[in-house]
């Protein structure tokens, strides 16, 4: 029996596998497809103060081992989220993390204050990093000073676990992560999507209505693992690894590189129960290789020069 529990700030997760924001709706969409009690937790689609219709189509493009999206944070706004989505999320026997976004520091504070009064969820994830909205979005995690200021402002109005989700579209993600830590974040999620673009050469038009969008899926996984590794060495708070996880081995890469937990995103579109399969696979790996706790794997990356004989021993097992 493997101890799969991990700790994200004040929050204990049953296992290290969460669902990534914007890929799992408000969980209701997955009713009957997923046994929620086998997840570490659910992260909601981004909620904003006011309703947002989202971007015009085309909003998605399939790319090699990945996809571009430009949904534009389509959601019904915080009031309808509380009335219509939160009760269902609250009824699930798993951790619930509400992802929020604002166009300004004031909006971030306002939406967190509004939600803080409600029960039925365990943590906030601040979306500092959506590449697909004209106002704000990326700006909040492109400048360490802004990251720290907004994190601190939100920290003052919530006693819940506070997670900051970062964009990879910056020069030095570790400095942004440190700024979030200094601002009082309990954990860092990394990464959000990578800015990307696809062109229809026959019409010479962009394939997305917004021209550029966010690349996700296995195509970005090596980028995400590297970012997580860089961040984990620079902060004391836990890092949640996100980016192209489809298989248990993908998640293990993140854990070994230093992530305390992972989020499954794009895989849900192809295999709705992907997160559960990943959680099971991590447990099997621990059992097979003699780890009594998944926590023993976290940050276990061995960067000493590789021993070819031991590598061969594992791969032929």
């Amino acid at each position: 029996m493997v101890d799969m529990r991990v700790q994200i700030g004040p929050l204990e997760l049953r296992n290290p596998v969460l669902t990534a924001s914007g890929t799992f709706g408000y969980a209701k969409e997955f009713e009957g497809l997923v046994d929620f009690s086998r997840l570490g937790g659910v992260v909601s689609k981004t909620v904003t103060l006011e309703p947002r219709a989202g971007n015009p189509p085309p909003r998605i493009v399939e790319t090699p081992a990945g996809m571009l999206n430009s949904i534009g944070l389509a959601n019904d706004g915080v009031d309808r989220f509380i009335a219509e989505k939160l009760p269902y999320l609250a009824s699930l026997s798993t951790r619930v993390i509400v992802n929020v976004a604002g166009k300004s520091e004031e909006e971030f504070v306002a939406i967190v204050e509004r939600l803080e009064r409600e029960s039925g969820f365990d943590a906030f994830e601040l979306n500092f990093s959506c590449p697909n909205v004209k106002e704000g979005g990326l700006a909040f995690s492109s400048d360490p000073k802004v990251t720290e200021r907004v994190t601190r402002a939100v920290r003052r109005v919530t006693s819940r676990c506070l997670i900051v989700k970062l964009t990879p579209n910056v020069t030095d993600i570790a400095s942004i992560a440190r700024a979030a830590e200094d601002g009082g974040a309990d954990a860092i999620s990394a990464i959000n999507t990578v800015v990307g673009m696809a062109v229809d050469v026959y019409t010479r038009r962009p394939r997305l209505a917004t021209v550029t969008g966010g690349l996700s899926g296995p195509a970005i996984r090596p980028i995400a693992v590297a970012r997580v590794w860089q961040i984990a060495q620079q902060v004391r708070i836990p890092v949640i690894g996100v980016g192209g996880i489809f298989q248990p081995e993908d998640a293990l890469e993140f854990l070994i590189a230093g992530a305390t937990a992972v989020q499954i995103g794009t895989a849900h579109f192809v295999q709705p129960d992907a997160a559960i399969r990943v959680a099971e696979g991590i447990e099997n790996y621990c059992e097979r290789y003699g780890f009594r706790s998944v926590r023993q794997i976290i940050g276990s990356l061995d960067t000493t020069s590789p021993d070819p004989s031991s590598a061969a021993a594992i791969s032929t097992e």
Partner: protein
Amino acid sequence: MELCQVIERRKVADSTFRYTLASPFLARAVRPGNFINIRVSPSLMPLWRRPFSVHDADPSRGQVDILFQVVGEGTRILSCASVGAELDVFGPLGNSFPLPPPGSPAVLVAGGLGIAPFLFLSRALKANGSPTHLLYGARSRSRLVELDGFQALGVEIRLATEDGSAGVRGTVVDLLQETETDLPPEAWHYVCGPLAAVSAIGRELSRRQGKVWVSLETTMACGFGACMGCAVKARGDRGYHLVCKDGPVFELSEVELW
């Protein structure tokens, strides 16, 4: 999600296939207009499942059929599946075609592969006692498929081909204009085809009386409302509908197609 065996594979036209899949569950659960999402390969390319409307279903034999044309990598891989192969199928997904009051007439308008969901719908319309007319347009005679199936159900068929090799020369919109006076005006109309065709047909039908239902085709990543990628503009100032979850069948007045 389940693995369904391909039990029959027929090439019905150039690069166009009809597959019969074994699935007692789907055969009982599907309604005309629903679609199923097939993972054509366990690899990451292509990444997404591919949506196919249900062409026909036989609950007594536990079978569902799809009709598809090779248009890209996903359908090319699918077209290589042989009899006995197992496909990873997710469904049924989406809503279904509402039926007219029992006994009242229906007009089906199909452009190209838009014919796919109409065989199953015709079966339901027959059970509903609805006299059914099919207006069907394609590039040429060789691309008109599954006519026998409609004939067997007693559907009255009118054809259009762009090269004039069968029926009226022109598109299904030309056919629609030509037949305006001799089809029952109160009939419920059902439209399916590529978005440009549905838009042109919808524009023509919006001038007439009788309800119009359109089945829309868009790029989809998930097929069940999670990714929100398959947005179509709602008519008026009401944001967007999701084709996979709110549709694929919409009343013409719900969506902005032109």
